[in-house]
């Protein structure tokens, strides 16, 4: 009897000794980011999080977005995205939606606006293998239907029409064309009707072969999975992507610094009810992660709507406004812009204020405000609400906010507030000669 009891106690002790380290190890691993080396030569990261059954997958083909298309084939990325994912494995559009639902693929999102071509989705662990097998057909079945291509071409002009109706869209398009006057970057990020209408299925096939490759692919898995599982999933999903040979290394086209000579533009629009919209932008190319962190700190510290000096100053001057500031990030080029809606009567005051402030910020560094901004960014950027946020964490925690030094901030302030690089567009019920 005693012997039996001892056996039971010993067994329980053994179990405890095994289980506690496993439990502690997995708790410690949570939010760990690891690079997963694999035989497919695909840059892959795993963000380990105790998410139970749910996995988030994001796949990005770098420099395969619309902004990196040639002028002649502007928009081919967007069309290719439809050709790949609208009808997978011979199924109709509706059947693909049903299949996604059956396979537990949720929030399947694809985008080609900007520099990159990417798609992401959620799936459960129980279904991921079948889901990836289904999605892999998108890359292996490349006999694209010419009738479907014609169908897409038919409704493209109406998509583009919708995008040019709101004042903000008109401002943005005009501003971008001034910041990138001789480049696709300055054109619509959906494509051009003319170039799309000239596309053939061979163009799409060539685009897939030359631009959607393993050596410009960047994949992130977020969830409770191991490196070995990630390796298997990659093989399933991207078996259809050909191996890259050394001779054909993916080439990134360089971007010219081609700001327009015109620094200010006015778009006259009647019936805007005494409201003018002003969008001011600065383009800064080729930033390192440290420089991006410095830029983000400055934008947050000076331009955040609640506590930033810029908005506070507008309120003190009783200038009626709604201001929105953002940085559009890219590998090759970044744009910081301020978009403001004003009462027409405040336009003169605003423009005076804008240029005074830009001159002031170029000279003066408010370290206190920037330090606060840095602390705020560190606090909010290190975690997220969702598994998708944790993917973006890889991008933003590679912004080393805590390492940004005073010199880096000073340098960035000079670049950002260089008035010779400022471009401004106004839209409102004002004449063309009433420019800034």
């Amino acid at each position: 009897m005693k012997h039996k009891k001892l056996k039971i106690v010993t067994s329980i002790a053994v179990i405890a000794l095994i289980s506690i380290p496993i439990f502690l190890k997995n708790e410690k691993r949570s939010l760990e980011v690891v690079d997963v080396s694999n035989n497919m030569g695909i840059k892959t990261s795993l963000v380990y999080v105790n998410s139970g059954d749910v996995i988030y997958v994001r796949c990005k083909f770098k420099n395969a977005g619309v902004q990196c298309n040639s002028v002649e084939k502007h928009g081919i990325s967007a069309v290719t995205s439809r050709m790949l994912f609208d009808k997978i494995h011979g199924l109709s559009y509706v059947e693909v939606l049903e299949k996604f639902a059956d396979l537990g693929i949720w929030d399947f999102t694809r985008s080609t606006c900007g520099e990159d071509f990417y798609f992401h989705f959620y799936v459960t662990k129980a279904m991921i293998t079948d889901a990836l097998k289904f999605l892999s057909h998108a890359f292996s079945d490349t006999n694209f239907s010419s009738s479907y291509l014609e169908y897409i071409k038919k409704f493209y002009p109406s998509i583009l029409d919708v995008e040019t109706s709101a004042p903000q869209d008109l401002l943005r398009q005009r501003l971008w064309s001034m910041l990138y006057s001789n480049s696709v970057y300055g054109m619509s990020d959906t494509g051009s009707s003319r170039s799309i209408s000239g596309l053939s299925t061979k163009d799409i096939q060539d685009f897939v072969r030359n631009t959607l490759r393993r050596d410009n692919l960047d994949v992130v898995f977020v969830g409770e999975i191991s490196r070995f599982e990630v390796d298997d999933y990659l093989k399933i999903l991207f078996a259809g992507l050909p191996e890259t040979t050394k001779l054909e290394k993916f080439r990134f086209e360089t971007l010219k610094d081609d700001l327009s000579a015109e620094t200010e533009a006015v778009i006259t629009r009647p019936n805007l009810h005494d409201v003018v919209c002003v969008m001011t932008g600065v383009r800064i190319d080729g930033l390192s992660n440290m420089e991006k962190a410095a830029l983000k700190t400055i934008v947050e510290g000076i331009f955040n709507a609640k506590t930033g000096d810029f908005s506070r100053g507008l309120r003190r001057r009783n200038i009626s406004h709604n201001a929105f500031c953002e940085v559009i990030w890219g590998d090759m080029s970044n744009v910081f812009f301020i978009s403001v809606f004003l009462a027409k009567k405040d336009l003169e005051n605003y423009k005076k204020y804008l240029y005074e402030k830009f001159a002031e910020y170029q000279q003066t560094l408010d370290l206190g405000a920037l330090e606060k901004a840095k602390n705020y960014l560190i606090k909010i950027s290190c975690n997220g609400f969702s598994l998708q946020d944790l993917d973006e964490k890889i991008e933003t925690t590679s912004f080393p906010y805590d390492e940004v030094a005073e010199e880096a901030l000073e340098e960035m302030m000079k670049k950002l507030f260089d008035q010779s690089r400022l471009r401004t567009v106004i839209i409102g019920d004002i004449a063309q000669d009433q420019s800034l």
Partner: protein
Amino acid sequence: MIKKIVCVILLLLPQISFAKNNEKKVQECILQNGVRVVLHEDFKMPMVVIGIVFHLGKAEAPPNKFGMIDLIEKKLINSELHDVFYDLGINYCTSSDYFCTKIVASMNPESARDFFIQMCKVMLEISVEDLEICKKQLVLEYKLSSYCGQDALANNIAANVQFSNGNTLPMFQEQELNSITESDVKLFYKNNFRYCPVTVIVSGAIGYKSLLKMLHNSFSNLPRRRARSSIPLATSSLKDVLLENKFMGNAIIYAYALSPDENMKFGNFFDHILLHEMKKYFNGIYKIANCSLDDIGQNGWSIKLITLERRSTVSLEGLSDIYRAFIKRICALGISPESLKKVAARKRVYDCITFANLGDAYHSMLYECLANRDINGTYFSADGLEAINLKEFRAFVENFFQQNALFKIMTKFKLDN
């Protein structure tokens, strides 16, 4: 025997360790002062989303002072708190609609206690600093939306939502907004916001006991919340409205109302099926540029807005025909026990994924709170779907598009086209 037990336990270990992450369980309680608290614990990320929902919206603005709620929403967080929250790393935003006003914030769990303490001050008294600037901002927003047509659309929707006492939802008027004084705002806030029903919705890395302790400590000064009565909506046969609109030209918006009883029984399930069928049906037709399903609800009532945007080549009659075919299809859907199991299985996956994300979990709980549905009741879960009475549901769907209809708004870019 002992070896077998050991093997079984070792095999079960991974499941035991992570079982808590697969749970969707939502806990709730009502504080002594009537504040409802809803919590979904999720410790996988050291982050928490907190929403404070005042069940008081634009529909309850005082007569001739529409804009009051918008002003209060803009002033909910006064400028002093901007700095406090910034230093604490709290990111927040406010919003209001016809039926509620909300503050949603995200933060590290360590900041939650301070957040509740500051919010208690806000809930007792509102700052009216910079009120004139807020008015100017609202006027700007209104004028801009006038250009695009958003305000016309919103006002048309408001004018067509009729309550059984003959009232309609109020519409934005610039003169009314400008006539509101600081004392008007303070008085309205004191008499209404201090006492209106409030729900605190939390999703993230806070334990139930810790949350209750924080709320007992910080919200103890709040006065007791009043109960609310809702005025039923008046449903009638579909009214037609034609509107010129640059914001959403070439579209039709169909509005339907679900009573609290119908919403409770079928609302969640119906939404799930309706949205899925809409995506399948309309996205496959190139004549349809976009389709969406929105919900403006209050106290159990749900007003569903089904919007179809057509490409310019399709006439309004053509669009109506497409919609009629869709209704026919959905009524003939024939939900069988097998397909119900399929829907329930999909819902399980959907809930699993929703509750893996703090923000989505928050919104899901918010939606259930606003619909006045039981947060953890059968109709919130996939298990409950399989218990649905199919005969009743089928009858409900067949009648829905006729008996629950409110109005139809058709928009064109230009009325002479």
